[in-house]
């Protein structure tokens, strides 16, 4: 932490309160602080830096994960396999930017116009974003510079590890051409006071070299160094308060000693991920806002998206040792476009992935046992692996609700996460499994394992952006339609999920939002 870290009074109503410090909240807090704006950031988790990260899957999971009780419902397999763990995300200063793999892809132009491009799809609640790719391009530029994304700004791509080399060989033999080590927020050369990737693996457990960008050791300490940002860790936001005019006035939270506090605020920005952000808005229901804050549309918590995912692992005659080096070491992008002749709308990416033995045992076939299971694990050394990440469709009934039957340690209703696969999701996943199998067979695989989705790492859409206040929760700036000084600053603002890993877009939107808030404050309109 910097020496001159700010300390603001609880009754200082001039501060912006940011709830959450991940790729959205952490970046917003720093960008506001850099512009001279006073910020209090509330973070439910603790503070961990590279020297604290643990390169052991379960120990790291215990250290970093959001493990508070959640419940699930719906026909997704997660509700059966991981009923109380719908999402694999982080509770710590820096949020899930500690855990993310680093893939940094811009959305495609048509993905901002999902409804216009795909047309109406039964059962889906498709909508165009209120912004276009060209609106976001300048901020993608800034985000790529901030994150040090390879293959942008003259930074070279990362070298391919064994897992990548198998993918590349198979993908090219299968006729694919857009195959590379991708655009990654992992330094391929020393940059921005962070060293280059040492091919250590354990990208998901926090990069002990700091080679991967995370808000935990970039934006957060830089924001603190301005003297304008105070990060309060182990502070769990419970309720956003408002005045008689309906404007928000502060955030109630439980501090690290278990004491309830109220931090007054000029502006509140919610960035607690697509599960906790709508939970907080719903939990803040009042006489004036009986359905929760910013919820006149009824869309808070709805349209939950988690990407169409799954993995394909394959076993080869000889060792691969996929765990060595960058976890997400390469990508095939030939299926990322929109081509309804494949039997679904939208597209998907295929990205290498590896798990260690402990997580492979937990996630390869949850609930599986016997020789079919163990004979696959016996060939762990000879495995290669890839992850499917594709556009899933917003559905109104896929949603976060408060579960009055389950309380957290503060006695507050936990979030229930309901998700039913849309037929489009199922068709896309089947297509992607077949593509993955074709790739690995072409590289000589002797056995292919179509592996079901993990607890969600990409959680999107539950406070979506819309042009018309009737259709969503926030406008194109992430400002709530109902309450002008209430913003949302995380992946929950995504109108649709697109095929790409979301972090770069979350960061670009946060930079853009910070610029907008600063300009409006300057004008006196906020």
């Amino acid at each position, binding site marked *: 932490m910097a020496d001159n870290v700010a300390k603001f009074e609880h009754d200082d109503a001039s501060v912006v309160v940011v709830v959450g410090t991940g790729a959205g909240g952490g970046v917003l807090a720093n960008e506001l602080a850099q512009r001279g704006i006073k910020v209090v950031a509330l973070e439910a988790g603790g503070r961990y830096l590279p020297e604290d990260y643990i*390169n*052991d899957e379960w120990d790291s999971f215990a250290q970093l994960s959001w493990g508070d009780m959640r419940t699930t419902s719906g026909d997704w397999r997660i509700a059966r396999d991981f009923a109380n763990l719908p999402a694999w995300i982080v509770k710590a200063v820096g949020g899930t930017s500690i855990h993310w793999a680093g893939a940094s892809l811009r959305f495609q132009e048509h993905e901002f116009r999902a409804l216009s491009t795909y047309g109406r799809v039964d059962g889906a609640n498709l909508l165009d974003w209120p912004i276009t790719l060209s609106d976001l391009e300048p901020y993608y530029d800034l985000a790529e510079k901030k994150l040090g994304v390879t293959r942008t700004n003259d930074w070279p791509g990362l070298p391919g590890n*064994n897992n*990548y*080399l*198998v993918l590349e060989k198979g993908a090219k033999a299968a006729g694919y051409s857009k195959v590379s080590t991708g655009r990654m927020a992992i330094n391929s050369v020393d940059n921005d006071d962070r060293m280059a990737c040492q091919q250590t693996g354990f990208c998901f457990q926090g990069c002990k070299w700091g080679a991967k960008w995370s808000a935990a050791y970039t934006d957060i300490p830089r924001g603190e160094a301005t003297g304008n940002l105070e990060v309060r860790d182990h502070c769990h936001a419970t309720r956003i308060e408002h005045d008689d005019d309906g404007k928000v006035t502060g955030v109630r939270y439980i501090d690290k000693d278990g004491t309830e506090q109220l931090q007054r605020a000029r502006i509140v920005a919610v960035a607690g991920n697509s599960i906790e952000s709508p939970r907080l808005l719903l939990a803040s229901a009042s006489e004036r806002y009986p359905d929760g804050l910013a919820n006149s549309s009824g869309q808070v918590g709805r349209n939950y998206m988690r990407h169409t995912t799954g993995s394909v692992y394959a076993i080869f005659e000889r060792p691969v*040792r996929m765990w060595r080096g960058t976890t997400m070491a390469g990508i095939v992008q030939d299926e990322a476009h929109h081509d309804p002749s494949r039997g679904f709308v939208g597209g998907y990416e295929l990205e290498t992935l590896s798990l260690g033995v402990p997580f492979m045992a937990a996630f390869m076939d949850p609930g599986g046992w016997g020789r079919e299971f163990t004979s696959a694990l*016996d060939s762990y*050394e000879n495995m290669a692996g890839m992850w499917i990440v594709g556009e899933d469709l917003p559905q109104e009934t896929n949603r976060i609700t408060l579960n009055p039957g389950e309380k957290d340690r503060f006695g507050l209703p936990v979030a229930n996460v309901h998700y039913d696969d849309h037929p489009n999701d199922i068709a896309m996943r089947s297509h992607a499994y077949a593509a993955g199998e074709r790739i690995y067979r072409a590289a000589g695989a002797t056995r292919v394992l179509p592996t079901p989705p993990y607890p969600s790492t990409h959680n999107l859409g539950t406070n979506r952006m819309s042009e018309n206040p009737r259709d969503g929760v926030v406008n194109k700036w992430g400002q709530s339609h109902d309450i002008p000084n209430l913003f949302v600053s995380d992946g929950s603002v995504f109108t649709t999920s697109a095929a790409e890993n979301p972090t770069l877009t979350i960061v670009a939107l946060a930079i853009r939002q910070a610029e907008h808030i600063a300009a409006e404050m300057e004008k006196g309109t906020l």
Partner: protein
Amino acid sequence: MTVAHNSPSGSNVRGLTRRGLLARAMAAGATFVVGSGFVAARDAAWAVETTTLKPATMATLIQMARDIYPHDRIADRYYAIAVKGYDTAEKAQMVEEGITGLNLVAKAQGFDDYLSAGWEKDRVTMLRMIEHTPFFQTVRAGLVTGLYNQKEIWPVFGYEGESFSHGGYIERGFNDIDWL
């Protein structure tokens, strides 16, 4: 409960000598030496002392664990370590009832008990008949971490664990594949 590994000299297991173990054995299953308050390997390479569970129950549980996640290159002691946590007052009743149920299934299949079935195929048939019970699901789920999170078995899978302390793989074979 403790799981004791034999010392390299091979004679002493937490005060239980090889000869003593075998002498005290009361009932021998197909795989294990089951004595009063302990289960041991036939070669006395390891022993599990039980405080609450019947030793025969523990022996059956160890075999059941292997049959759920059979790895022929992983020794019994790792399965014993994975299930030793069930030897508590809190969990004993659930396990005793579960194993009793499993042995009843074995009898219905024409065996004296679960351990008497010599072929894995026969034992797996019995496990399939109880796989939806809370007992089976608890044991199976517990093994996912109880067995596979033992670092000692990772080399069997070729898995190297953390590499940070060795400087990663940048100069140690991250891209050394030579057969593509």
